[in-house]
Each structure stands twice: as C-alpha cells, then as structure tokens.
C-alpha cells in the first residue's frame, strides 16, 4: 500500500505543483486587485472556483490515468484488494490536495494578516470562508474520483456527479451562518458521493452487483447532475424563447419620487427608454431650469430589526452569511487618505492609512485612540449598514447613537435610547461623497417608537414611528427647502394596498397632513406559458401538475395553456412508455422494473435519463427451445426455463479427456 501511496504522489506531483503555481499566481493577482480575504467577488470567486477545479482535476487525474485496460490490469493484479488501492490513492490525493490548496492560501492569509499590506482590519475569523472553500474542494475531489472511476454509458452521464458537488458548493455559499454549518453541508455531500465512488473503483464495472447504498448514492449523484444540466439547458431555452417573443420589452416600472418642495411624483421607467416624471395625476412636470434638481435627495432607512436575536433567518443569512463580507467587517467611510471599517468580530471602528496601509487607530468611547493602543471595543454591537456606499456619519448600537467625523477623527454620542425603546437604526448622508449630489442635510435615529431627526448634531424634531416592520420595509425621509419634512413609509407587501403612507411634517415636527398612495400599475406582461415548456418538460410530472393547477387557481389563464397541458400529458405518457420498454432490457428483477416505472412516473424525463445512465442494455437473442427473445446473462430462459444450446459442432472438433501431460 505504501508503494501505491508513493506512486500516486510521484505520478500526480507534477500536476499538483502546476496547480499550486497557478493558484498562487491567481491568488496574487486577486490580492493585487482587491486585497481582502472576504471582499465580495475577487477572492471568493478565486477560491470558490479555483479549489473545486483543483479538487476535481486531482480526482480525475488519479482515476483516469489508471483507467486504461492495460494500466488497470497492471495496477490491480497483485495481492492487494482494490479497496486498499483506493485507500492509498485517496490518502495521497487528499494530501496533495491540501498541499496545493493550503500552501498558497496560507501565504495569502499570512500576507493579508501582516500589517502594512492591506488597508483594512484583519480578524482570524476572516480566514474561515476561504478555508471552507478549501475544504469544500474535497467534495469536488470525491466527485472527480466518482466521475473518473465510474463506467458510464455516455460521456454526459459520466460527468453528472459533478453536479452534486456543484449543488454542495452553491449551498455552502448561500446557506451557512458559520463554519460548522458549512462543514455539515460538506459532510452530507461527501456522504452522498463517497460510497458511489468507492464502489465504482473497488467494486468493478458491473453496476448491478454493487452494494445497494453505493448504487443509490451513485444514482442520486447522477440524478442531481442531470437535474442541474437539464435545468440549465431548459432555463437557457426558456430565456431564448422569451427574448425571441419579445416579451421582455413590454416591461415597465412605476415608482414614487419626491419633488424638492415635498410633493410626490411618479416616475415611469422602461428598459431602454429614459424615465418620464409626472405628478400624481399624471400631468407632466413643467420644465425646470438646468440647475434645479427634479427630484429631492432622500434618506432611505431600513425598518427591519437589526438585532440579531430578532432578525429573520433569511435576512440573517443575507447579512451575516458565513461567506458575506458583512459578517466580518463593514466599510464606514473611505477616501484617498484613509479607510475606516467597523469590525464586527471585535466590535471596533478601525482606521487605516490608504497609502502606507497601516493601522491608524480606532474610534470608540474614548474618542480617537492611536495605533499604539489596542482598538477599543464598543460595549454593545453596532448596527452598521452593509451598503458600502452609504457610509453615514452616524452609527448606533441599540442604546446609543454616535456622530462620526472621520476627517477630524471624532466620535460624539448624540442620542441615548430610553430603556425599553432601543434604537432600530441610525442613518445619515454618506460621507466623502459630493455633498451637492447625494447628501441630505440631516441625520436620523429611529427607535422602535420614534423617529428623531438631527441637524448639525442637535435634535430638531421627533415624531412617532407610525408604521413598523413587518408592515413596512423602509422609510424615506426628505427635507424640503423650507424646512418641512416628508416621511414616506414603504409597504412590505407588494400586492396589498396602499403602496405608501406619506406624512408631511412642519419644521417643528407637527403633522401637517397624511396621505396614502395607491399601488402603481406595473406594466408587466407575463410570458406566455408555452415559453416555459422547456422547464416543464424537465420538471417532474407531479411538479408540472401542481404548477398548472396553481396557475389555474390564480386565474392566470393563458390561451396557450391547454395545448401545453396536452403536450405535457403526452410527453409524460411517452416517457412512461419509454421507461416500460427500456426497463425490460436492463436485466432487472420484476420488482425493480416496477419500482423504476413508478419512479419515472414521479421524476419524468430526468428519471428516464437516469435509468439509461445507470444500466447497460443487455443483449437478447432467440431461445433455441421456445424461440422467444431471452437475456444472454441468464442460464435459464425467462420463458421456458431451457438453457442455451451449446455451439453447433462442425465435425472438426478435437477434444481429449484432459490429463496432466501426454507421455
């Protein structure tokens, strides 16, 4: 076994070295573009795609290089079990994989963690997503082994298990909130892929004789891959059909906007056409001078609860997903001189010199503390927006709101929440952006009951928060040129009336009037159902049935509905008949045959493709006794129980009763 381990290392070592160099180069380039371990896009893309490629390639190399008949015979014909050979291969492959993955990653992490390289904070938790990607590559390695070892009927079916690894990688990207959940996903996927891989390698090519767990998991892997491939194909076809029918072009959006004097306007937007702005009655606005803005700057404040305890799981996933940058740090303000970040894991606000990429110091309760001291954490977690471009000059925890001035490096508490009425959010105009274009002259602190508006550090007005989450999703606040405030609450339900509640307040915060704005019509012509047919053909018949029933219940009637239904029913029947025909030629037991027919009734076309991918058609020839076609693999005829006839003698046979030697 050790000899096999060393052989695998030596055989694949050069490929591993190549991949290590390539990965290092790509990582180096990635860090030069975006020097961050967690920053969206560059590094996650590199590790999220690079490690799967490396893992898959290694798995394929290890199995394909030994798969030619001569090589395979040479390797396996020795006093060692195939299981032992596979174990040695896996050990070598995993060692190589981790060398190739962890060395460049380790260097990258070390580089990022070393002060002076990156103008951003480093927390060791930031390495976890990349490490998770590295570990996730193991799923692809296992998939590579299964793909390389499986004796597949056609090249497409051979590649299908990669789909399982793909689903695993995508799941690990979207769902986990922490490393543990990511590892759980990897473990589940590995548990699905490895038995099939093991059996494909160690069990020999006769699929029907492999242990049942191996067959089911291998079949599942192929099925997942088939769904991915067929689904992608169907999705592509559908979008092609839709663009061909030109349905997209009719879409349009209508949104409410604010005028500088506090009136509400309606903007009609269509793709490819500049927006037209009208008043609420639909009358176009009088033309204004070039320098006057048509729309007011507004502050949009999210109404959702920022307390992680109360956050919905979906939002928690969006905001604090394990792979999201926002779980670790949030940009507070950046310009050419300095970058400031809120570090979630340490609960600090830290600044970095953009040129020298050094840590400048932290802003906290004690004000600005230079780099020589350690960063000062806040007593409670701060709610800092995920949005990189908002960079407000105000941040808040549940208890206190602070006004920030990053140029002067000051942090001043401006508001303390009453006990029992914690702060929801504090928001303000973005710093470091052109003040004329983007900013509003006020900041806002919203508690669970009240909206407080601050100007120049002092509270100007406060008013009751009339509509809360989950009824509303956000609050838009505008200050008119004469000091009035307009508050527009956005409804969270896209179908219910009204769309917005608008309150107009005087400069002292007293309510002037309330308005309710109705839903604006959405010009959205849905695509005819027939453009969905590619997807419908791929989906299980049960899902199709449900989709059609749901469409009917929603009164989404479509003239193309009935022909599509008929076509789907016909296609389902054809699939079932095809299954009935095909399944008889696979040499399966009667029970297995009926199980497959039922299975394909549920799964439809992908099920039929799965059946064809897993099993070989077994030849049939005419039975010498009863004349019916019978399987060549059985000693007894299925119909008449007779054995096969011996090959007809031609009178030239020479046989001797064998003895050991002829003297």
């Amino acid at each position, binding site marked *: 076994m050790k000899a096999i381990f060393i052989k695998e290392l030596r055989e694949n070592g050069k490929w591993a070295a190549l991949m290590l160099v390539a990965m290092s180069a790509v990582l180096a380039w990635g860090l030069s573009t975006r020097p961050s371990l967690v920053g969206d896009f560059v590094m996650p893309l590199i590790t999220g795609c690079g490690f799967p490629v490396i893992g898959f390639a290694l798995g394929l190399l290890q199995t394909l290089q030994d798969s030619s008949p001569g090589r395979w015979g040479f390797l396996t014909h020795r006093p060692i079990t195939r299981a032992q050979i596979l174990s040695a291969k896996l050990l070598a492959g995993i060692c190589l994989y981790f060398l190739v993955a962890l060395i460049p990653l380790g260097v990258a992490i070390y580089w990022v963690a070393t002060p002076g390289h990156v103008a951003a904070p480093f927390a060791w938790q930031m390495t976890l997503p990349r490490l998770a990607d590295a570990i996730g590559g193991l799923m692809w390695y296992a998939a590579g082994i299964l793909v390389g070892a499986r004796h597949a009927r056609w090249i497409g079916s051979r590649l299908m298990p990669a789909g399982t690894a793909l689903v695993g990688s995508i799941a690990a990207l979207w769902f986990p909130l922490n490393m543990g959940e990511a590892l759980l996903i990897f473990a589940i996927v590995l548990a699905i892929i490895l038995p099939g891989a093991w059996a494909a390698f160690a069990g020999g090519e006769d699929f029907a004789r492999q242990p049942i767990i191996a067959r089911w998991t291998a079949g599942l892997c192929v099925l997942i891959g088939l769904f991915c491939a067929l689904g992608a194909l169907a999705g592509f076809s559908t979008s092609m059909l839709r663009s061909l029918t030109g349905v997209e072009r009719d879409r349009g959006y209508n949104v409410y906007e604010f005028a500088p004097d506090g009136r509400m306007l309606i903007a009609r937007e269509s793709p490819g056409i500049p927006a037209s702005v009208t008043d609420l009655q639909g009358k176009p606005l009088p033309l204004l001078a070039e320098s006057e803005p048509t729309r007011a700057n507004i502050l949009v404040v999210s109404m959702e609860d920022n307390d992680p305890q109360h956050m919905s799981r979906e939002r928690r996933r969006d905001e604090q997903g394990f792979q999201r940058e926002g779980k670790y740090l949030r940009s507070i303000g950046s310009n050419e001189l300095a970058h400031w970040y809120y570090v979630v894991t340490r609960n600090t606000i830290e600044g970095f010199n953009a040129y020298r990429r050094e840590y400048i110091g932290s802003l906290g309760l004690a004000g600005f503390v230079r780099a020589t001291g350690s960063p000062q954490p806040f007593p409670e977690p701060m709610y800092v927006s995920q949005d990189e471009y908002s960079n407000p000059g105000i941040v808040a925890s549940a208890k206190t709101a602070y006004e920030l001035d990053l140029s002067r490096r000051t942090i001043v508490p401006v508001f303390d929440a009453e006990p029992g009425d914690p702060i929801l959010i504090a928001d303000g105009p973005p710093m470091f952006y052109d003040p004329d274009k983007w900013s509003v002259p006020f900041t806002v602190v919203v508690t669970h009951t009240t909206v407080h508006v601050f100007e120049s550090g002092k509270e100007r007005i406060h008013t009751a928060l009339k509509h809360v989450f989950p009824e509303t999703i956000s609050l838009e606040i505008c200050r008119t040129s004469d000091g009035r405030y307009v508050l527009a609450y956005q409804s969270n339900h896209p179908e219910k009336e009204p769309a917005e509640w608008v309150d107009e307040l005087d400069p002292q915060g007293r309510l002037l009037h309330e308005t309710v704005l109705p839903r604006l019509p959405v010009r959205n012509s849905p695509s005819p159902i027939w453009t969905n047919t590619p997807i419908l053909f791929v989906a299980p018949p049960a899902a199709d049935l449900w989709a059609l029933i749901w469409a009917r219940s929603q009164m989404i009637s479509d003239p193309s509905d009935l022909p599509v239904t008929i076509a789907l029913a016909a296609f389902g029947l054809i699939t079932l008949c095809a299954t009935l025909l095909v399944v008889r030629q696979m040499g399966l037991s009667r029970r297995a045959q009926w199980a497959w027919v039922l299975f394909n009734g549920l799964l439809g076309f992908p099920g039929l493709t799965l059946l064809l991918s897993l099993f070989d058609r077994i030849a049939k020839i005419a039975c010498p006794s009863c004349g019916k076609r019978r399987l060549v693999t059985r000693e007894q005829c299925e119909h008449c129980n007779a054995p096969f006839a011996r090959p007809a003698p031609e009178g030239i046979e020479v046989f*001797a009763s064998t003895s050991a030697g002829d003297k």
Partner: protein
Amino acid sequence: MNDFAIKTTGLTRYFGGKCAVDQVSLAVPRGSVFALLGRNGSGKSTLTRMLMGLLEPTRGSANVLGEDCRHLSPAARGRIGYVAEGHPLIDWMRVRDLESFQKSFYPKWDGRLFKSVVDQFGLPSDARAGRLSRGQRAGLSLALTLATRPQLLVMDDPAMGLDPVARRTLLEAMILVTRNAGHTIFFSSHVLDDVERVADHVAILDKSVLRVSCPVEFFRARIKRLVLTFGGTPPPLPPIPGLLEARRDLTQLRLTVANPGPELEQLVASLGAQAVTEVALSLEDAVIAYLGERGEKPSLLQSDQLEAVAS
C-alpha cells in the same frame, strides 16, 4: 480442483449483441504449458481477461487456482503472474522504480531472477519504461512477473512485436518456469513454431467457439493432409466429414481433414486418383488449415484477380 490450474464452465461474454466468447469449457492441467490459439478477434484476450477477473463474464464460470474468477482473492492474485497484451507497465517509472514497486507487494520476490532476466534483455536500471523498445518492454514485463515466482503464469500474446532474439529469450524464460513441476503456463500466441517448441497442450478458439482442447500430439495425430494426384483436372469434391480445407491445382487436390475415420479412405478411393500421398504436417500448417475458411478455397496466389504469372 487440484488437477487443474484453470477450469472454465460455459464461460461466455457478450459485447452488446456480439458474442466474443461462446460457452467455453476448457481445463488447463496443473504443470502444463498450455497454448491458446486462434485468429485475431477470436476471443482469446477476452477469455484471458475474464480469467484474470478484469472482465465480468456474461454467463458461465471459471475457476483459477481453485477460486472463482469473479472473486479472486488477493492471495490468489499473488500466485498468478499476468502479462497482458502489449506488456502494460507504468510508463513514467524507471526500471528500478518498477522493481521496488513490484517487490513491495510480493514477499517471495526473487531479486536474482529479476536481475538475470533484465540483464538478458539488456535493460539499464535507470531507463524509463515508456522509452523502452517493444522487446525490452516485454523483457521488463516478464522479469517483473517471473520474479514473483507465480504458480500460474498467464500471458496474452507475449511474443507480439518481438524480434527473434527477444522471442528466444521469452521461450527460455518459459522453459525456466517448467523447472518447477507444479507451475503452469497459460499463454496465447501466433508464433506457432515457438508454440510447437514449448507447449504440451493446445486449445483453439475459432470465432468465439472452443473447438480444440487437448495435448499437442493428440491434436497433430488427428489432422491429416493428403495429396491426390490425377491424370487431368481433379473431379469436384463430394462432402467430406471433417474437411478443413481443400486446395485444387492443375492436376492435384490437397485435402486436409480433421478426425480422419475409415470412411475417408473410401471417399478418397472413390475419387479415383492416380496416387494418394500423405504429407506430414507441422503444427503451424495444421493450425492454419484449422483456422482458415472451411472447404475449397483458392489461396491468394491462385486468385484469379491477380495477373497471370509469366511462365
């Protein structure tokens, strides 16, 4: 089971609808040198791969060294030496790498034997297997297999592509194996002179069907070649039982018959030839007659498509 190194019962293999091996039942006695003959594509390699457990039989069974070929234990595989068609090796490894690789699996490794065979073929120890010539590859493959001291040596066309010197060395290696009385060799070959030298049993696969399995001399004794000389054109042939081939010349008929019986003499007599001579057959001639097309058929040289020979 102790009598036979290999025993198959109705061993069959289909590739799709095509039958490559059709219900072959043969028995290889322990200690014999057993040659499997047949034309290219007659199923020899398929049969051998099934015996080695590398290919699943469609039907039937085979016992190799007492174990079912579908489930050969590692211990059994340790006692079987296998040289597959084309002498496959790990091409990137050097000769010495392959030696230490192979050695690590077999406790009974005979290093001196390995060295002798390697020296005989002139293989430098740092040469990469992929760069060796055909003959050298065969030698290396042979050395790696022989040094494990197998009880059963299975070789699929080991002489393919070998020059005469290498072939001779291969033969010597096979004789070497016979030094041990219990050790068996099962091989396939097209070099029938070498088979005549070294084999004591022979089997012939004719289009996936086994038609011969017996000691070599037994086979030879049952193939007879008669040359009938006539005054003029030889008469048309009646059906002759066991006729393998018939060659017609201007005044002669050459008949090669298997399992000649008493009725052959009468049939020959009825043709009315002036003279009937029996011609001694080499093994090669017997096998060629056996494997060619049945019945009367001109050779290439007699083909009427060719231009006439200038007399």
